[in-house]
């Protein structure tokens, strides 16, 4: 069964997502920081990463996503980002010059995520990824 890595520093959210994802028999592992997340991607080779934007810093998730997509060994792992669309495109984050895909994630879902929405997005990303 597919392996999913959740990178989020909120243990309650992680636990809730685990419960939802495990109903579909996904194997779920988690990391509580960007740094730990990057290590676990290397070590555990997940099929999908669920990534929170705001961790140590307000945009830690962006850095993690960029790093994953810039690395040949992890660039094909789909990323589902936990964020509101406003936070994604609105005020706080600007396009960076030369960034063709400025937000290198495959899909996003706003917190709190509806269980059905989370499951359907995960399923879709795993199929295409």
């Amino acid at each position, binding site marked *: 069964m597919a392996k999913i890595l959740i990178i989020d520093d909120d243990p*309650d959210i992680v636990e*809730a997502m685990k*419960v939802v994802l495990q109903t579909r028999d996904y194997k779920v592992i988690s990391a509580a920081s960007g740094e730990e997340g990057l290590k676990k991607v290397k070590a555990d080779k997940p099929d999908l990463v669920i990534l929170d934007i705001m961790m140590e810093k307000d945009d830690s998730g962006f850095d993690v996503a960029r790093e994953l997509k810039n690395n040949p060994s992890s660039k094909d792992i789909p990323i589902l980002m936990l964020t509101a*669309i406003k936070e994604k495109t609105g*005020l*706080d984050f*600007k396009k960076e010059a030369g960034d063709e895909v400025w937000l290198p994630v495959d899909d996003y879902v706003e917190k*709190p995520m509806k269980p*059905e929405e989370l499951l359907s997005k995960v399923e879709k990303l795993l199929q295409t990824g």
Partner: protein
Amino acid sequence: MPGFQKENGLIERVYWLIRLRWLALAGVISAILSTKLIAGIQLPFRALYFIVLALAIYNLLFYLYLKLARKRLFSDSGVIVTRVTNIQISMDLVFLAGLIHFSGGIENPFIFYFIFHMIITSTLLSRRESFIQATFAVFLFMLIVWLEYAGFLEHHCLRGFVLDDLHANRIYIFGVSFVFISTLYLAAYMASSISIRLKDREKSLKEANLLLEEKDRIKSEYVLRVSHDIKEHLAAVQSCVEPVARGITGALNNAQKDLLDRAVERTNKLLFFVKALLEITRIKLSKDISMEYFSLKKTVDSAIALVEEKARVKGMEIALRMDPGVDMIYGAEIYIEETIANLLANAVKYTSENGKISLDIKDRQETLLIQISDTGMGIPRDEISKLFNEFYRATNAKKTVREGTGLGLAIARQVVERHKGKIWVESEEGRGSTFSISLPK
């Protein structure tokens, strides 16, 4: 000081000076004509007309210069504008002295018109400059009087207006000069005193305003922080409760499901409110929102798609009419989409079943006009002005629909103002409302 004057629109006041000069020209012409035609006094009219013509040309050239140099003057710290104003006022004094010389010199009561230049100088420039201009005016006046008295310049007597030729009457010269000089300096002193006081007050008001803005910013930051933290916790609560309520963790009995559904529903409402609060605070605090060209057509379609279902349930359709040619506009796409969707959702919410809702997009050369109309309950006339205030909800809206944050229209206003546009509403209670947004293209 120059910077301060510039902020207060010194350039605009230079334009005011130009307009005043046209007015003065008209006054001079009518004074000359009435001297000639009504009073029948003989004066060197050709010389007077020549001065009038020169003044008109000078004013026109000056107007053109200002138009061409406007951009440079705006970026200037105020030094050039101040110098230009000084030169202008000095030129005006010379023109007035010329007119006075050809129309009676010291006999002409219009010599007291120099006082207006003193007042203007005091309002536009510093006290020191006012005194310098007053001294220049006194110099010009004394020069004419002396030159005419000594016979170096021909005196043109206002015969018929004065009984006797006065330009050589020493006592008259002394008396009038004394009154004239003291009047000029007193006028310069008083007008600049008033102007200094006004400027000081303006400055302290501005400072008070800045302080208020700073306090408001601190308050907004506080709200942002608090609502952000609340949202984090709420999101965690909802993430944990919802799977249980949906039966993902196992079957529930009816009472369990009912109570959990209620908890989920209330959490949702609270989340909605906190998110709206976060959003308006974020817009307020942001210096600029990122904008780009986007297709308004597409945006309008997706805004309609967001509310279509709710409208359909109430037996309503949203009639879209869009001027041909409306397409790309410059702005923040998601905010415009949300604003339109928000106004449409309000229209659906406050219109009874089978009412009519329309969305019109009109092309108005410089701007785009977006209008959302409904046949709903309308807004009481005396509440319209408060409608876009934060947390305000119209009394009839509150009665009919209990839920509502009172933030939707405040957010809409922030968004529209960030686009340098306008938002307003026309409404008649019981008949319906039309919300209009005008956006620069």
